């Protein structure tokens, strides 16, 4: 049989994208559409007194102005967090506590952040809506804002939510082994406070929602560039109190995402369509996007690490504060990811992570590519380098000394994962991965290169970081595979892409089973009408969950195809072979049927088969996450006079198990590395001391450009996962996990005589300048 898995199949989705004929949310045209401009809070924290929209309602082209009062009978607030099904074991073992959650669609009474939606101005076009939005007069009585966790945790701090006793919204303590005892016994200690500053997910396409309500049939259709169409449908049904089958959510072509959520704007626009009885559209602008979508990171880690003189790390104690912003929709996702991944690839028997989610008057933080792992990995791998510096050892040696050997796989890490299952590294060879990365970058000869450069007045440095990544988070993903009346194979899947190449990769998976060329298989996603249950694309899950769902459905369909062929050919199904779209008896190859024949035979009423239909559906329920891993090495050049950092070389050794399409895996790695370099050096979402958002343009919020990113070498060291039929592990986020540590370790190495601590990202030129000055450089 031809093998389609593992081939660099060029993408089927590309043609429409390179010709500009994709259909993104803003490209959808519905007759009679009105455009929304949101009126947003100007205050970080205030009692909102009045909203006077009379002048706006009279303005040219305005259809309506809707406030919370106008939607009061129609829309319920958010009352349920994402991943709210917390396994009781986490409460029992780790004292996990999560506070009540209630977040408005349109705020009234109290606003808790700058940018919080207050009203929707709906007009004939966006220009007119923006004009009228300026006429909406909001009066408010400011409350002192709390803008960082230190302020928020102060006993006298204003509390953001009346139903909480303080500004702590969630808390847990994970303990493995005897972390404090081991700390006391360790020969050496480091205490350090790390900070991973706030950044944005920043897809190049902004958010958008279009909603249409047919009052006659009470059918609501919502187009949204969401990562989770089925989840959005569920929230809309709950919050608008509609039957689920009255709602269809469609995700059109989508210009990136890098972090998902269900946003108040999605519910508000749907509600407006119901109120107005005409299509309503909201297309966000960039300023709005930077202030109101996909903020992430913003963690503090207070670390105590105990290690011995031989470099062996024996214990890690971490006090994590996650600055969650004004609401905490993802409960402990980000902090628990940090706790689960902070030991990285290392054999550390003792761990204590105490984590608190603290509410502040800022945009909520939600998962973005890396999602807690980037933060934890930065902290851990900076520590490894600080230990190396303290012991005057080579960081590569320290790493090798602490890595979990391949012989110990699978390795139970002594704690539970967020899904309530044991945290088990299922596969991989971390020492081989490190050796491979060292070899690829030329580590052995680098020191000489470094010295030569130094003599020429250039400061080169090298830095290593590794990571693990629990990927393929459940609970499930679904797929339907069918052969249609034309004998063609169709795949429908509940996971939908925002750049991940589902149309190609899922076709490859299906092709492998049904032995049909992948370019003859259509893959449809991003529509809740395709199948009853769907998950989505997040958490590096689609190759694992959607890939295996399609695989399982295709296996079922293959069995069905052979059964129908046996009926048609009047032979035993065990005598039949499926090959190249034909099913035949090996003993008599001339007697064969094609998928087209079987499609005819399986038509109801054909009289040729006992039961009609050529379709199979499957839901893949992963036993738990599977652990992908990677090792990154960066070489940077630092210009101390400008405090500038240029990443010169970058090597990734990646283990995502079976690769479905290596070209696409490499693309995911490249993109992740660039995102991680942005986090390391450039990207920061900022609020000023009054709580105003100050990075509302791409001139303020710096995304990496082509000149900021080096050539990236990707080496694959694949160890298939034993946990799923395809042997795949996720690859979407690993690329973004290690760059901050690799790059900052390299900067520290370039300026080693200064013994810089480098405990914060992004390492902007200003921060590096101040660090160099403080070190007397």
């Amino acid at each position, binding site marked *: 049989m031809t093998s389609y898995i593992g081939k660099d199949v060029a993408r089927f989705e590309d043609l429409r994208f390179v010709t500009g004929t994709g259909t*993104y949310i803003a490209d959808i045209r519905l007759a009679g559409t009105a455009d929304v401009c949101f009126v947003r809070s100007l205050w970080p924290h205030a009692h909102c007194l009045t909203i006077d929209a009379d002048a706006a309602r009279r303005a040219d082209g305005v259809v309506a102005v809707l406030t919370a009062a106008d939607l009061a009978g129609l829309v319920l607030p958010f009352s349920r967090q994402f991943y709210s099904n917390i396994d009781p074991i986490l409460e029992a073992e780790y004292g996990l506590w999560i506070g009540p959650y209630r977040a408005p669609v349109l705020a009234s009474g109290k606003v808790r952040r700058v940018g919080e939606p207050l009203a929707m101005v709906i007009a004939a076009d966006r220009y007119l809506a923006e004009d009228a939005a300026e006429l909406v007069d909001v009066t408010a009585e400011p409350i002192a804002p709390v803008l960082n966790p230190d302020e928020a945790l102060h006993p006298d701090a204003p509390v953001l939510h009346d139903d909480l006793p303080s500004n702590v919204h969630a808390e847990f303590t994970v303990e493995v082994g005897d972390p404090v005892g081991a700390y006391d016994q360790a020969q050496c200690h480091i205490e350090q406070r790390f900070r991973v500053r706030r950044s944005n997910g920043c897809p190049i*396409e902004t958010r958008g929602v279009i909603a249409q309500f047919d009052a006659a049939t009470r059918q609501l259709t919502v187009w949204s560039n969401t990562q989770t169409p089925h989840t959005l449908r569920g929230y809309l049904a709950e919050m608008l109190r509609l039957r689920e089958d009255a709602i269809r959510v469609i995700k059109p072509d989508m*210009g990136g995402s890098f972090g998902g959520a269900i946003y108040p704007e999605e519910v508000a626009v749907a509600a407006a369509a119901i109120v107005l009885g005409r299509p309503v559209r909201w297309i966000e602008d960039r300023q709005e996007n930077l202030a109101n979508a996909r903020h992430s990171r913003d963690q503090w880690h207070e670390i105590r690490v105990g290690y011995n003189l031989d470099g062996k790390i024996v214990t890690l104690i971490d006090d994590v504060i996650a600055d969650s912003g004004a609401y905490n929709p993802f409960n402990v996702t980000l902090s628990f990811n940090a706790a689960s991944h902070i030991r990285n690839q290392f054999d550390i028997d003792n761990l204590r992570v105490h984590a608190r989610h603290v509410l502040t008057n800022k945009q909520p933080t939600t998962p973005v590519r890396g999602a807690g792992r980037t933060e934890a990995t930065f902290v851990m791998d900076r520590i490894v380098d600080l230990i190396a510096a303290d012991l005057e050892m080579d960081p590569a040696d320290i790493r090798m000394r602490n890595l979990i050997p391949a012989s110990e796989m699978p390795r139970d890490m002594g704690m539970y994962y967020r899904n309530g299952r044991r945290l088990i590294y299922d596969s991989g060879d971390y020492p081989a991965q490190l050796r491979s990365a060292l070899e690829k970058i030329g580590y052995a000869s680098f020191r000489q290169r470094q010295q030569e450069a130094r003599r020429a007045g250039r400061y080169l440095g090298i830095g290593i970081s590794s990571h693990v990544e629990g990927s393929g988070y459940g609970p499930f993903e679904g797929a339907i595979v069918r052969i249609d009346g034309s004998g063609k194979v169709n795949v429908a899947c509940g996971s939908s892409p925002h750049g991940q190449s589902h149309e190609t990769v899922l076709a490859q998976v299906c092709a492998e089973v049904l032995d049909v060329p992948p370019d003859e298989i259509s893959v449809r996603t991003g529509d809740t009408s395709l199948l009853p249950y769907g998950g989505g694309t997040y958490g590096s899950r689609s190759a694992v969950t959607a890939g295996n769902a399609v695989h399982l459905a295709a296996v079922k369909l293959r069995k069905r195809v052979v059964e129908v062929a046996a009926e048609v050919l009047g032979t035993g199904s065990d005598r039949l072979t499926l090959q190249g779209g034909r099913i035949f008896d090996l003993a008599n190859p001339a007697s064969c049927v094609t998928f087209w024949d079987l499609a005819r035979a399986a038509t109801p009423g054909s009289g040729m088969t006992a039961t009609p239909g050529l379709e199979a559906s499957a839901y893949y329920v992963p036993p738990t996450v599977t652990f992908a891993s990677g090792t990154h090495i960066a070489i940077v050049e630092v210009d101390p006079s400008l405090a500038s950092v240029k990443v010169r070389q970058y090597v990734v050794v990646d283990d995502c198990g079976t690769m479905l399409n290596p070209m696409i895996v490499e693309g995911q790695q490249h993109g992740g590395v*660039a995102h991680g370099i942005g986090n390391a050096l450039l990207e920061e979402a900022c609020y000023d001391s009054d709580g105003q958002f100050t990075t509302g*343009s791409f001139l303020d919020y710096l995304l990496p450009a082509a000149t900021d990113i080096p050539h990236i070498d990707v080496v694959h060291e694949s160890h298939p996962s034993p946990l799923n039929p395809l042997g795949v592990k996720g690859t979407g986020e690993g690329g973004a996990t290690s760059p901050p540590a690799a790059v900052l370790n390299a900067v520290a190495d370039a300026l080693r005589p200064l013994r810089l601590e480098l405990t914060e990202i992004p390492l902007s030129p200003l921060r590096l300048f101040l660090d160099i000055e403080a070190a007397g450089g």
Partner: protein
Amino acid sequence: MPDEMRISFTLNGTQRTAMIKSRHTLADVLRDEFGCTGVHLGCEQGVCGACTVVFNGRTARACLLLGVQADGTSIVTIEGMPSETGELHLLQQTFSSAHGLQCGFCTPGMIITAAELIHEVPAPTETQIREALSGNLCRCTGYANIVLAVRRAAEAGGPDRGTSWPEGASGLSDDAAQSHGGAPDD
């Protein structure tokens, strides 16, 4: 300035006329009046480059121009990127074969910017490619395969090989050639 103005211009090789709102941006006019939805709006701040079009033979950001400025000009969008071979523009082919796109949102602007580079500098170095593309942001690819796609097109291309630049190009100034001179690869 009146609220509405009539514009007449060449769009993707065809003479077009429309009455437009004088305050509407060129990007909105191209998208909404003429259906060129391949002109993508990523920032409307002139930074991301997704809305890049060919404006009188040079790249320009459609979000920073007003629609009325199109009057009397020649504009080419991704929908009109020509190829003398009748196939896709070579860059459209190499972006796909090199996996130089993922979500596809930045792709039209990238391809138009890259086409201008290859028109001006037929054999660009990697540094020149990265410099030329540095005003076009991509969040998906890390640029690696975009650079590869441009290099492949430059190597395979030439005026008669599907890397043509739209008619109406205003001829190269010495400055333009210089601007891509750049530093040597490092």
